[in-house]
């Protein structure tokens, strides 16, 4: 969100890149209380979601949590058991897939094996009744975009997995739908090609202004691609927000551990001073100070979540007096250490026998190749009260 302060002191907010924050914007896709049952099994349970025009929205979740089912309901292949879906203000109930302004890229690609690449891609335009000349033109254009021009005459089974995937993407894109649904579009690609295609997708999205809904179970991919993410679990949305919101303000223990990694400490509230809460793991352990805006009573059970990179670690002998004020400062011993080049990961067992994961950037160069902090070293860790999150769910 960029804030432009005008000269008279009245601030005006520009929502072009963050339409979900604009209270006056109408959502492009409205999912209202959608429920989907397969027999007695609930695949998607009572979810609501607004997606805005031009968003690149990611549905993130583990296997079998209902991502594909939700996407299929948007495309019209699956009828919601209850609830409604509106796209561009039109209720999609009763509208068959071939009349929806939506195209989908299938998890299995679903390329027509009896047609060559060119025919596969032009299929949608042909059904639309686009004239031959324009069809050829647009097919050629999109073939160039996905860098498959030289494979135009090949059949799908003569392509590599990544090439097939790009054909599937081109076939879904060529109709310039209002909404493009992508079911795990990059799963079959190697890391390098995946990153490249991620940026390609973002470029296409920006260029064509199509609203993307991308399903993925790769949280890094979701963080890279998406304007916003909905994290799903067992047919529910656990949290919806921007990558940063979800990462920095996880709503529940599930989110905190699903997105990135987090140290989760079971605690009870012992003291409160404004928005500074003092919590502790047991009566005899040291209190942890956490800043929290909510209202909690003394004795409430909470979980403290701290990301590994938000914790500082220092050799006990080298602890500077500046941080040695007692706040969230714990002593421990390094049990595991992994040097990853850019950063190092430590597993530290504290004095009251809790394992804490810490990652720290390797800012200084270890010229002699020896790591300053090593296995079995006695260390002190500390983190700011603002770096931890209190979770009640």
């Amino acid at each position, binding site marked *: 969100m960029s804030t432009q302060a005008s000269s008279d002191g009245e601030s005006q907010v520009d929502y072009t890149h963050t339409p979900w924050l604009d209270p006056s914007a109408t959502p492009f896709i409205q999912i209202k209380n959608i429920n989907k049952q397969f027999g007695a099994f609930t695949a998607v349970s009572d979810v609501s979601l607004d997606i805005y025009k031009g968003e690149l929205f990611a549905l993130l979740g583990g296997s079998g949590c209902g991502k594909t089912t939700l996407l299929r309901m948007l*495309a*019209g*292949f699956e009828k919601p058991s209850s609830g409604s879906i509106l796209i561009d203000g039109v209720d999609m109930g009763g509208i*068959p*897939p*071939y009349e929806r302004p*939506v*195209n*989908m890229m*299938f998890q*299995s690609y*679903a*390329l*027509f*094996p*009896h047609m060559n690449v060119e025919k596969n891609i032009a*299929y*949608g335009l042909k*059904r*639309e009744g686009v004239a031959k000349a324009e069809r050829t033109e647009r097919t050629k254009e999109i073939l160039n975009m996905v860098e498959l021009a030289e494979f135009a005459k090949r*059949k799908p089974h003569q392509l590599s997995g990544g090439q097939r995937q790009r054909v599937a993407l081109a*076939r*879904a894109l060529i*109709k310039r739908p209002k909404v493009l649904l992508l079911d795990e579009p990059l799963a079959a690609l190697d890391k390098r090609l995946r990153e490249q295609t991620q940026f390609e997708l973002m470029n296409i999205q920006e260029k064509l202004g199509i609203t993307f809904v991308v399903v993925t179970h790769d949280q890094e991919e979701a963080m890279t691609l998406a304007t916003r993410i909905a994290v799903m679990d067992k047919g529910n949305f656990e949290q919806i927000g921007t990558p940063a919101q979800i990462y920095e303000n996880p709503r529940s223990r599930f989110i905190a551990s699903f997105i990135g990694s987090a140290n989760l400490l079971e605690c009870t509230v012992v003291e409160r001073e404004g928005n500074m809460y003092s919590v502790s793991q047991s009566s005899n352990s040291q209190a942890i100070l956490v800043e929290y805006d909510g209202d909690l009573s003394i004795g409430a059970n909470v979980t403290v979540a701290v990301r590994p990179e938000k914790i500082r670690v220092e050799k006990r002998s080298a602890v500077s007096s500046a941080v040695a004020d007692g706040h969230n400062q714990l002593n421990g011993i390094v049990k595991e250490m992994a040097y990853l080049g850019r950063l190092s990961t430590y597993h530290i067992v504290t004095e009251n026998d809790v394992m804490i994961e810490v990652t720290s950037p390797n800012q200084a160069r270890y010229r002699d190749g020896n790591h300053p902090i090593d296995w079995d070293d006695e260390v002190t860790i500390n983190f700011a009260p603002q770096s931890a999150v209190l979770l009640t769910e």
Partner: protein
Amino acid sequence: MAASDQSLKRWYSKFTNVVHRNLRSLIVGIPFVWLLLFFLVPFFIVLKLSFAESIIASPPFTSLLDWSGGGFPEISINKDNYLYLIEDDLYLRTYLNSLKIAITCTIICLLIGYPMAYGIVRTQGTWRYILLLLIILPFWTSFLLRVYAWMGILADQGTINDILLYLGFIDKPIKLLYKPIAVYIGIVYTYLPFMILPLYANMEKLDSSLREAAMDLGANPVSTFFTVTLPMTLPGIIAGSLLVFIPATGEFVVPDLLGGGNVLMIGRLLSSEFNANHDWPLASAIAVVLLIVLVLPMMLYHRVQASQANS
């Protein structure tokens, strides 16, 4: 005892070694020997017969090789049987009529069988297997018996006429039995499973996401059928059609029992030349020509398959 056990084991391992070494040629060899014994040898016998002359004797034909001259035998090839097939237009008419009936029945089988196979594939759970079982069930009774049953159904006092009379649609029985319609009904009934089963096997493998992809790209159900489902099931259509067309062309039992003498079919003609006229050479010539007529579409099918595999 132990010694013989040992030698038995050694012999066995030797045997399995030989088998393993020759397994490849064995696997290729068995169908080859089978074809040689049960197809090629009889075919050459029939081919030889078709060039012989019919005589009143036992067996009722001349030998192609005349050894009486001593030394090299004299080969006498008699083309009269084939010439006779051309001269008397009965044969040509019968061939054409057989082809007409077989083609018509194949098309009817396809029109009935395709939606049936599609319906079975789209059925979920145990019902699917019950339906499949119902398709195969008729094979468990004798084919002849089932054709006799059709005689009962189609006769003047048969089931169909009884029902139509009872409902008042007609006031005197309509003739069905010993009419061409009876032959069509009989052949379609007999060969319908041979159309449905290959189609079912083909459709079962069809990925439903392809149909969804077509719909997603704007194809309505009709357009989806013609652009995706139909082309994808073409191999099943071809296999099923051949399985119906080939035996239907040479069909003997159905035209004999349900068509009486009124429906010309090559199978009946062949049988009467063989049994009634004792003209084995002519019957053989009829069979050879029939084979050629049937092999042509087969070769066409192979061409299509080969070109599909290549592209």
